[in-house]
């Protein structure tokens, strides 16, 4: 991920366990306690495309109300990025997963 494209700018260091997750196959380093949204936006601006029209979105309210930051997980599930803490090995995607092959 290209940090120069970051939307969020970290101004307070977080100590804690290092966590690696991936977004669209690219590794993202974060710290336990970070929200998925903060980890993604520290590493690049876009987190999903709107289902209707495809315009880019990167969350809005950051407090679990607007429902605009759902990303896909490798199991075909969805995660609300702003209220979900990062965890080691998470594989997240901007685009739908696990639906192309319904048995996959």
């Amino acid at each position: 991920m290209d940090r120069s494209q970051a939307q969020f700018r970290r101004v307070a260091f977080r100590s804690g366990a290092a966590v690696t997750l991936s977004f669209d196959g690219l590794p993202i380093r974060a710290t336990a306690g970070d929200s998925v949204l903060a980890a993604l936006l520290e590493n690049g601006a876009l987190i999903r495309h709107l289902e209707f029209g495809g315009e880019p979105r990167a969350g809005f309210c950051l407090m679990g109300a607007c429902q605009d930051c759902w990303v896909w997980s490798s199991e075909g599930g969805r995660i609300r990025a702003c209220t979900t803490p990062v965890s080691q090995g998470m594989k997240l995607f901007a685009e739908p997963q696990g639906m192309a092959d319904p048995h996959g």
Partner: protein
Amino acid sequence: MSARTTDVAIIGGGLIGAWTAFFLARRGQRVTLIEKGVVGAQSSGVNFGNLRLQGRFPGQYPLSLRSQALWEDFDALIGEGCEFEQTGHLYLAYDEEEHAKLEGYAKVSESYGLAIERVGPADLRRRWPWLGERAMAATFSARDATANPRLATPAVARAAARHGATILENTRVTAVDRGGEGFSLTLADGTRLSCGALVNCAGAWALEIAERFGETAPVFPAGPPQFVTEPFPYRIEPSVQAIDGSVIFRQIPRGNIILAGYPRTAADPQANRAPVPPAKTLAAMRALARVAPMLAQCHVIRVWSGIEAYLPDMIPVIGPSGTTPGLFHAFGFCGHGFQIGPGVGLCLSEMIVDGETPTPLEPFSIERFRTATAVSEKFKKEFD
């Protein structure tokens, strides 16, 4: 206090009323449609949106097929769309007993000329790979369809108005009487409306009018628990129904999955409330995940219900009054009125203008409630 005259007054601005007004107006009748709220806001607007042909009450097929042809021609007839999609309908059986029932339905459908495809377990998952493993057989009817109920009725009412019908929204009828050769209605603002023929299609509120003319039907209000999910990639084309009635769902091309489940819940037409008990939402969520396991992680975003009128034999009242010439009833559609709505409107218009309709409607006469009422198996299953 003003007084007006119309050829036909229609009480109830749901789908039936709107189509009836449309066909009557097209044949040059002066029509006044009276709706206590706004058109298409009750069960016509909040139902599941299924235009299902499989598995209907046998005596309804002539009406049903006539109606489907009207849906198929909706855009041309009405001049705007209602998200009509000829998706086909997939009926699923999970054991031998259900399979036999499915076969029974299929034979009836075929006897009325509907093409039914029988699908075995191997083909089931080849054609619809999102289906769970347990489904053992299915029938597929390609002519079945879906539409957006929220859009349909207002569109038909607008078309009726373009043909000259008068649509009165937010207007209550405070009195209905015999008058002259026909009827005399009093509206909430005091207006007197005289008409030659009167159509009672007031849904869950229709009984009052029937009783005013000395006849009755054991109609009661209820609604199914329904929900819609967030949008998912579009994979599920047909509307899908488990024959045990536990679940019926469809995916719209935008991606949302719409579900209706059972059992239905009593509703309150006075307070205009149709509650959705959360326990029923949960049961329906489980049922959906069983039929289409791929959806297990799909999120429900909203539940709703609507007030529908039911009768214990689970078929509607359609046709002339048994007591009062010039009065026609069409109510109690038992949760399956959406598909036959256009056909019912057409038949009523024929009965009013021509004195008869070529479509057989005898099974739906209100007269059947003069004697003991049959209680349908479906009825026992689909309510608490």
